[in-house]
């Protein structure tokens, strides 16, 4: 199997997942409104003080992304599990890691689309100067890549056992502590500006996190999926 045919397989998986999602939109709409709801609820919980909300906004935004994402990862395998189609997919020749890459791309596209709508909403609700910090979008993408990588990986296990709804966050969130810290700190110093904030070192940590876990999950996926 050549590299290009592996890419073609990954693309086919991603295309299949995204097409199924595009035609039903059920999951996308549900996750989108759920995340918008969380943004509102955090606003209620933290009080109407505009300054306090701005201070908390980076953390709120990232937690909202995490809560929304964790709902969608299991779904990406459930589609296959419902029809017993995962076994069929695994029977195809070629590297099974193409399946992982394909699902990763589909999940990434899904979550980025959610964010495209979610972030402006957050900016309005929490009074964030979105346009002043272009670097913020880079941080958003880097954080999302790391999140989706681990989420897609753990969902491959969690979606196939009982109690999957609670198991996925239980496995995934402790792993995301460094990502959450660096994403929130970088976002904070880019959007709100804080005196001691140094976005670049946090961004570097994000990049390192992404690279390490992209490589690690890519190689570990074989052990998760083999039957």
């Amino acid at each position: 199997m050549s590299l290009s045919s592996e890419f073609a397989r990954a693309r086919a998986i991603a295309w299949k997942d995204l097409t199924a999602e595009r035609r039903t939109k059920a999951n996308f709409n549900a996750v989108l409104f759920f995340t918008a709801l969380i943004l509102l609820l955090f606003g209620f919980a933290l009080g109407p003080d505009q300054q306090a909300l701005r201070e908390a906004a980076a953390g709120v935004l990232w937690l909202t992304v995490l809560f929304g994402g964790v709902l969608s990862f299991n779904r990406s395998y459930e589609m296959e599990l419902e029809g017993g189609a995962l076994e069929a997919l695994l029977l195809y020749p070629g590297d099974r890691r193409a399946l992982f890459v394909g699902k990763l791309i589909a999940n990434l596209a899904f979550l980025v689309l959610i964010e495209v709508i979610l972030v402006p909403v957050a900016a309005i609700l929490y009074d964030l100067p979105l346009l002043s910090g272009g670097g913020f979008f880079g941080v958003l993408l880097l954080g999302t890549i790391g999140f989706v990588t681990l989420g897609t990986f753990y969902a491959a296990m969690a979606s196939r056992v009982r109690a999957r709804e609670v198991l996925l966050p239980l496995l995934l969130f402790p792993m995301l502590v460094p990502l959450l810290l660096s994403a929130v700190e970088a976002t904070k110093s880019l959007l709100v500006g804080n005196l001691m904030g140094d976005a670049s070192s946090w961004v570097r940590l994000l990049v390192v996190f992404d690279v390490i876990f992209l490589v690690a999950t890519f190689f570990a996926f074989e052990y998760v999926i083999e039957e």
Partner: protein
Amino acid sequence: MNASIERDYPLTPRWLTLFGWGALAFLLLSQVLGVLTSPPDRDMGDLQKIMYVHVPSAFMSLIGYAVIFVFGILYLVKRDLRYDLLAASAAQVGAVFAAATLVTGSIWARPTWNVWWTWDARLTSMAVLFLMYVGYLVLRAFTEDEIRRARWSAAIAGLGFINSGIVYMSVKWWRTIHQMQSTPGTIDPAYVRGFRMNIIAFLFVFAYFVISRYRVARVVRDVEARIEERALAPNAENVHA
């Protein structure tokens, strides 16, 4: 049935019993010696004594995760389920030590820092480590097929092991950017002997626990396999069993 189990699984072998008692005796000795021989700390007074439980527990919880990682890799290489059971045993024991670390740390923090919890780098990383232990054990509990469970556990342990270093680094960084944090510094020579002895004592206890858990895990696995076998192939002799 009982008789056959006893024949196949002899009760705890003599060396293990002796080892267990030896570990206990050594632990008691180290604790007593550590507490009695160390002078009260200049700032902490007798509070310092908790170090002989707290720090060794922390070490054991770190070693525990490394042990899971190593046995996970060994399982993936050799495909021998015994390594998986060893990893699981180490996870159970390591989780207990991580919990002990958190509890003793919290007890110590109350009079020292006047809070039960502080977002100190080590404390916070230990909490994350504890949760990674919990995730590992919960996944095992929910996964029924033992081969699948072994593979998945090994994969999780691998990623968790990589992550534990990144977690500590990032939390430390996060704290130091916000405020300077006082570190305990090096230990005064007066405490070193008791400290070392207790580390070794805890290592013995850790090993004893893991071996014992492993023996239980093997028996449980074997009994389950027999029950399954019997259920699948019933014959006249066993219908009422």
